[in-house]
């Protein structure tokens, strides 16, 4: 009781890892990783392939168990956080159900777990408002195959937001899109982050994307996945596409590239 009271007063961490590791059989995906991610932050996660970027998101979202160490999400176990719908996941593939319209896809999380009371309290944006937020007003009745790749990913983002998650875990969500669509969605994502106050963990392969979106960039090194460095990106918000041509931006990108080469 006393513990609960203090944790409500203290600024809560979105996610805390203490010496966490993940193993798949003999393969160590993540080793001895310690992190504290502040509530409301936007972290980009960058690293060579095989560094455990995706595994880190899967660890936080209770898709894979920790083999050692501890993981807390908003002061709870990952399982409790999952059951409370504290986080939502956006995959590289939109993973929409092809027989459901855009609107019905966004409504899916509200239908699941209804009888077991998993759904958090109402009061957030309606599925319709979320589709409007991601710029898909008027396409709510379209089936996924009638939408472009970028539109499908925006439906997936609207679906992720429908239960008002406190943390948005994004695993290379724009990796398969063309650059123009990607720029557009990057801006939209920053807008959503700004409007909802959600914490975002954003895995990417792209250095410019990592710098452009993140307040911090978490750099991991490979085999096994370990912490390399956390780089603060002191570029003011709101950011615009033009900021990517600024000298500071280019300096950050060069710095990240240098660190990445050491990984």
């Amino acid at each position, binding site marked *: 009781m006393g513990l609960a009271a203090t944790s409500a007063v203290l600024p809560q961490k979105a996610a805390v890892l203490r010496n966490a590791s993940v193993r798949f059989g003999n393969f160590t995906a993540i080793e001895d990783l310690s992190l504290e991610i502040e509530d409301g932050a936007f972290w980009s996660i960058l690293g060579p392939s095989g560094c455990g970027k995706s595994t880190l998101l899967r660890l936080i*979202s*209770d*898709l894979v168990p920790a083999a050692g160490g501890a993981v807390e999400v908003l002061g709870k176990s990952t399982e409790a956080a*999952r*059951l409370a*719908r504290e*986080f*939502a*996941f956006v*995959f590289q*593939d939109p*993973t929409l*159900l*092809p*027989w459901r319209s855009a609107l019905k896809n966004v409504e*899916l*999380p509200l*239908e*699941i*777990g209804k009888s*077991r009371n*998993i759904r958090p309290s109402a009061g957030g944006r309606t599925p319709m408002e979320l589709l409007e937020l991601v710029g898909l007003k008027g396409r709510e009745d379209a*089936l*996924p*195959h009638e939408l472009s790749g970028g539109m499908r990913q925006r439906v997936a983002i609207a679906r992720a937001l429908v239960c008002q998650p406190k943390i948005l875990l994004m695993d290379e969500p724009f990796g398969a899109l063309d650059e123009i669509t990607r720029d557009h969605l990057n801006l939209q994502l920053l807008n959503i982050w700004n409007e909802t106050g959600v914490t975002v963990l954003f895995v990417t392969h792209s250095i410019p994307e990592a710098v452009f979106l993140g307040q911090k960039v978490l750099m991991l090194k490979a085999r096994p996945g370990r912490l390399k460095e956390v780089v603060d990106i002191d570029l003011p918000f709101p950011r615009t596409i033009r900021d990517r041509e600024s000298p500071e931006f280019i300096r950050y990108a060069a710095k990240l590239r240098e660190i990445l080469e050491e990984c």
Partner: protein
Amino acid sequence: MSVAQSRASAAAPEAEPANASRWAERSMKAALPIGTAAALILTWELGVRIFEVPNYIAPAPSDVAMVFVHQMPLLMRNFWPTFYESILGFLAGNIAAILLAVAFIHSRSAERAFFPIAVFINTIPVLAMAPILVLIFGAGLTAKVVIAALICFFPTLVNMVRGLQSVSPQALELARILSASKSEVFWKIRLPSSLPFLFSALKIAATTCVIGAIVGEWVGADKGLGALILDSTFNFRSAVLYATVFLSSGLSVLLFVTVSVAERLIVRW
């Protein structure tokens, strides 16, 4: 301005021939198979008449047509039993296959226990199985329904299992993050994913269930299209035999079209 105008006026007459040629192309597409069939029937008619083939060896198409005109009551009297046997067999076989596929998905040991048996039953030729089933169930409706059901069963079982397994691993991860229960995963994700697979199996079943019913009637029945085929063969009523064959393939086509229409209405993605 004048350039734009001349362009517009040039475009307008171009559009019409384009439409006309598309229409011509479409009617060509339909005309080709219809024309071919008509030509074949005509050749057949002429062949029978020129070479004076006896009616009991090969009846002319006109003789077959006359059977449809004059002996319609006889044909229909035998059509309905086969129709009911086929439909009931279709329903029974597919429902059983779907239920077993669902059991396989949820229990590995159920799959290990029953799948080899299902394969074994599928390897028995229908003609060999039919007498056994008629011995067990008697010469009535039941034996034919069971034969029609067995013939539908295996393709649907295999396709339905594949369909239920066709869910992407990511969709299952999504379900896990949403803390979906097993039954929610089944009803909201697995079952709809399986529908395209199910319908390809149902299309096969729509035609094979009629074959099953007719084979069942060959072994022991006094009514039905299968019985009429045997009866007209042994009595050299070849025109009736041909009419019966057309009617039974018409029944298959009817069931196939029904399933196809249902598929188009249900599987819209």
